[in-house]
C-alpha cells in the first residue's frame, strides 16, 4: 500500500513541480516559435504517457499486492492487447514527430533574403564579421591568420576587402530581418548559443557551419558557448543586441572594414600577410560535412 501511494504521490508531485516551478523557457526572442510548439506538443504527449503509465503502476501495485490466498492469473500473451498498444504508441510518436520534423525542415531551409553574419570562436572569446556592401564574405583560412589578421581573411580575395570586422564580443542584429549565422572556429569545437533564440549550432574547425533565425524582440541577450571547449568554457561569453534599423545602421557605420584594417598595417606585417596568400591557394571549404 505505501508503495502505491508513494508512486502516485510522485506522479502528482511531478505535475505540481511542473506547474509551480519557477524554471521554464526564457521568453522567445526569435522566429523559432515552431521549435517551442514542437517542444510543447512533445511535452503534452509524454506527460500523458508518464501520468497514465505510472498511475497504472500505482494501481496494480495496490490492487494485486500479495495477500494470503491470492493467485496470479496465468496468461502468457494477449496479441490483441499488444497490437492495440503498439498502434496507440505509434500514433503518439507520429503526433510528436510531425511537428518536430516540420520545424526542422524550416530550420535547415535558410530564406534567400537572409543577411549574413559570421561568428568566429576561439578559446575563449567570440568575434564577428559582416560581409559589407557586396553581401558576400571573403574567403578565410587558418593560413592567413596573423596578429593583424586574426580572422584569417584572404587578402587577395576581392570579396573580403569590404568585410566588416567586429573585434569585440558584442554583436548587433537588426530586428525582424532573417539572418544566416555562418560559424567558424579557429581552434576547437564551440557552439553559438543564445537561449532566447532557441537555435544553436556547433562551430567546427576546418569547416563552416550555419543556422538561421529572425530576431523578433529588441533587447540584450547573452551568447554562451554550449560545446565544451576547455578550461575557460564557462567564461566564453558574448552579447547580442537586437535593435531597430536606425540604431543598427549607426552601429554598422562604426565598424572597420578589412581594407581600412590593411591600410593601418605596417609594411612588415602587410608583406607577411601577402606572402601567406601567395604561398599556395587551397580553397577553403564551404558548407558542412
Amino acid at each position, binding site marked *: 500500500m505505501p508503495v502505491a501511494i508513494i508512486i502516485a504521490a510522485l506522479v502528482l508531485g511531478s505535475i505540481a*513541480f511542473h506547474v509551480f516551478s519557477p524554471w*521554464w523557457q526564457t521568453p522567445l526572442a526569435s522566429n523559432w516559435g515552431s521549435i517551442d510548439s514542437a517542444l510543447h506538443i512533445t511535452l503534452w504527449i509524454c506527460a500523458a504517457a508518464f501520468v497514465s503509465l505510472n498511475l497504472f503502476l500505482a494501481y496494480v501495485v495496490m490492487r494485486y499486492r500479495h495477500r494470503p490466498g491470492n493467485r496470479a*492469473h496465468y496468461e502468457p500473451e494477449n496479441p490483441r492487447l499488444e497490437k492495440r498498444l503498439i498502434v496507440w504508441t505509434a500514433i503518439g510518436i507520429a503526433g510528436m514527430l510531425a511537428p518536430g520534423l516540420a520545424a526542422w525542415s524550416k530550420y*535547415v531551409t535558410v530564406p534567400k533574403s537572409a543577411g549574413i553574419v559570421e561568428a568566429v570562436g576561439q578559446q575563449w572569446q567570440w568575434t564577428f564579421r559582416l560581409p559589407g556592401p557586396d553581401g558576400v564574405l571573403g574567403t578565410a583560412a587558418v593560413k592567413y591568420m596573423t596578429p593583424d589578421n586574426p580572422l584569417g581573411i584572404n587578402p587577395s580575395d576581392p570579396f573580403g576587402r569590404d568585410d566588416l570586422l567586429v573585434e569585440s564580443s558584442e554583436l548587433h542584429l537588426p530586428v525582424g530581418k532573417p539572418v544566416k549565422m555562418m560559424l567558424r572556429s579557429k581552434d576547437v569545437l564551440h557552439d553559438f548559443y543564445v537561449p532566447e533564440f532557441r*537555435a544553436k549550432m556547433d562551430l*567546427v574547425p*576546418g569547416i563552416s557551419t550555419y543556422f538561421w533565425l529572425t530576431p523578433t524582440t529588441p533587447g540584450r541577450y547573452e551568447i554562451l558557448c554550449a560545446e565544451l571547449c576547455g578550461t575557460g568554457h*564557462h567564461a566564453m561569453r558574448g552579447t547580442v543586441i537586437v535593435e531597430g534599423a536606425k540604431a543598427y545602421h549607426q552601429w554598422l557605420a562604426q565598424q572597420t572594414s578589412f581594407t581600412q584594417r590593411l591600410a593601418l598595417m605596417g609594411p612588415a606585417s602587410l608583406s607577411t600577410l601577402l606572402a601567406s596568400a601567395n604561398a599556395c591557394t587551397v580553397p577553403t571549404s564551404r558548407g558542412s560535412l
Partner: protein
Amino acid sequence: MATTIADDLRPMHHPRSWIGKYVWSQDHKVIAIQYGLTAISIGLVALVLSVLMRLQLGFPGAVPAIQPDNYLQFVSMHGMIMVVYLLTALLLGGFGNYLIPLMIGARDMVFPFVNMLSYWFYLLSVLILVTGFFVPGGPTGAGWTLYPPQAISEGTPGHQWGIVTMLVSLAVFVVAFTMGGLNYVTTVLQARTKGMTLMRMPLSVWGIFIASIMGLLAFPALFVAAIMMLLDHLAGTSFFMPAMQSMGQTTATVGGSPILFQHLFWFFGHPEVYIVALPAFGIVSDLISVHARRNIFGYRMMVWAIIIIGGLSFVVWAHHMYVSGMNPYFGFFFAVSTLVIAIPTAIKVYNWLLTLWRGDIHLRVPMLFAIGFIFTFIHGGLTGLFLGNVSVDVPLSDTFFVVAHFHMVMGVSPILVIFGAIYHWYPKITGRMWNDMLGKMHFWITFLGVYAIFLPMHYLGILGVPRRYFALGETAFIPPSVHLANQAITVAALVVFTAQSLFFINMIWSLFRGAKADPNPWGAASLEWQTPDTPPHHGNWGPHLPTVYRWAYDYNVPGAPRDFIPQDEPPS
C-alpha cells in the same frame, strides 16, 4: 538419463590451490565476482567524483581545491567510468558471467581460459585508467565524449598524458570485452542444456546475449577511434585534426575531420546505451516475473523487442549530433529512426506493467527496485523523445536537460536494476540472506533521492542552463532561484551518496552474519535456482546436467500444485 559431451567432467580445469580457485580462476562464478567487485570499486571512485562536482555546482567555491580544470576532469572521469568501467563491466562481465551458464544449464563458459583473460585485461584497463589521476597534468578533462581537437589540444586539462592513459585504457577494455563477449555469445549458442531452446531462455540471458553481440559490433568503432586519436596525438597524423590554431599558434595539422570522430564515437556510443540497457531490461523482467509470481507477459514480444532494439540502435547514433555541424539533412532520418525505437521500448514497459497486472506482487526488496526502475525508466525514456525529436533537441542539447535525461535513463535506471539483481541473487551467490530492513531503507532513500536530484535538472535545462559549466557566474537569464535549486540538488546527492553505505554494510555484514539462505528462497522457476548446491560448486550441476522441459515463467499455472514449476521439472 543419457549423458552428453557436456556431462563429461574430465576436461574441466579443477584448481587445487587457493590461488587457482580465487585468483587465476577459470570458474565463471568467480570471474563474475571478480568483475563485479572491480567494477563496484572503480564505480565508487566515480561516485566520489560526482559528489565533488555537485559540491562545486551547489556551493561554488566552498571547496577551494576544485578549480575549472579539476571540475572538467571530474566530469570526464565520472562519465567514462560509469558508462564503460562500471555499467558495461558489471552487467556483462559480472551478471553475464554469473547468470549465462547457470541459466542455460551449462557447466561453465565455453572458453574458460579466455574468460579468465578477459577479466585480467579488464583489471589492467582499470589500472591504466587510474594512472590517469597520477600523470603530470592529471586525467583528461575533455568530457567523456573525448571530442577532438580539444581532447588533445592546449587549453584542455590532461591533454598531454591524461588523454593517453584514457585512450590506451579504452583500447585495452575493448580487448577485454571482446574476449568476454565472444564467450557469452558462443556459450549461449553452443552450451545450452538439453531442452533449453532459445525461446525458453530467461529474458536476462536474452538481454545479455543481444547486448554482447552489439558490443562486439560497436566497440571496434571506439577502438579505432581511440587508436586514431592516439596517432594524431603522438605520431602527428591528422585524422581528426583540421588546419587550426591552438592558443594563437597555427598547428601543423591539416585536413582532418573532428566530426569523423563524433561519428565513430557515437556509432559506438549509442549502441553502448543499449548494451547497458538490454541486460537491465532482461534482468528486471525476471525480477518482476518472479516476485509478482506471474509469467512474464508477452514473452515472445519481449524477445523480439530486445532484438529489434538491438538492431535499430545501430542506426540512430547521429541523434547525438543534430547540432554538431554534420549535414543537417541527416536530422530527418535520425529523428525518425530514433523515435521508431521508442515503440519496441514502450512494448517492454507495457509488458512489465501487464506482468504486474493480475499478479500476486510480493513487495520484497528486489521487487521494490524493479518498481523503482519502471518509474525512472518511463521518465527517462520519455524525455529521450524530446532529444530525439530533432528540432526539439536544438534548444535542449548541451543543457542540463540532457544531463537529467541520460542520468534517469541510463544511470539511475540500470543501477536500480543492478541493486535489485544483487539483492535477488545474493542468496544464491553467497548462500546467505541480507537484512530486509536495511535493504528497504537503502531502496527508499536511493529512489526518492535520485528523483529529487534529477527532476529539477530537467527544468534547469528547459530554462537553458548549460552543462559542463564550472560556474554559472552572472548570467542574465539565470535567476537566483537556480542557485537555490543547485544547492537542494547537492544536498539530495549527498544524502543518496551517504545512503549507499547501507547497501555495503548490509552486503558485508550478511556475508558473515546473514541467515543461511534457502536454495530457492523466492520460489523461482529458472534453472540457476535449481542447482544441487548453494552457492553452486565448480561445474554447477553435479554429475548430470539438468534437462529443461518448459520456459522459465511457469508461475501460478492453473492446476499446478505449487505456484511455480521449475524449468527442469518433467511434465506430469
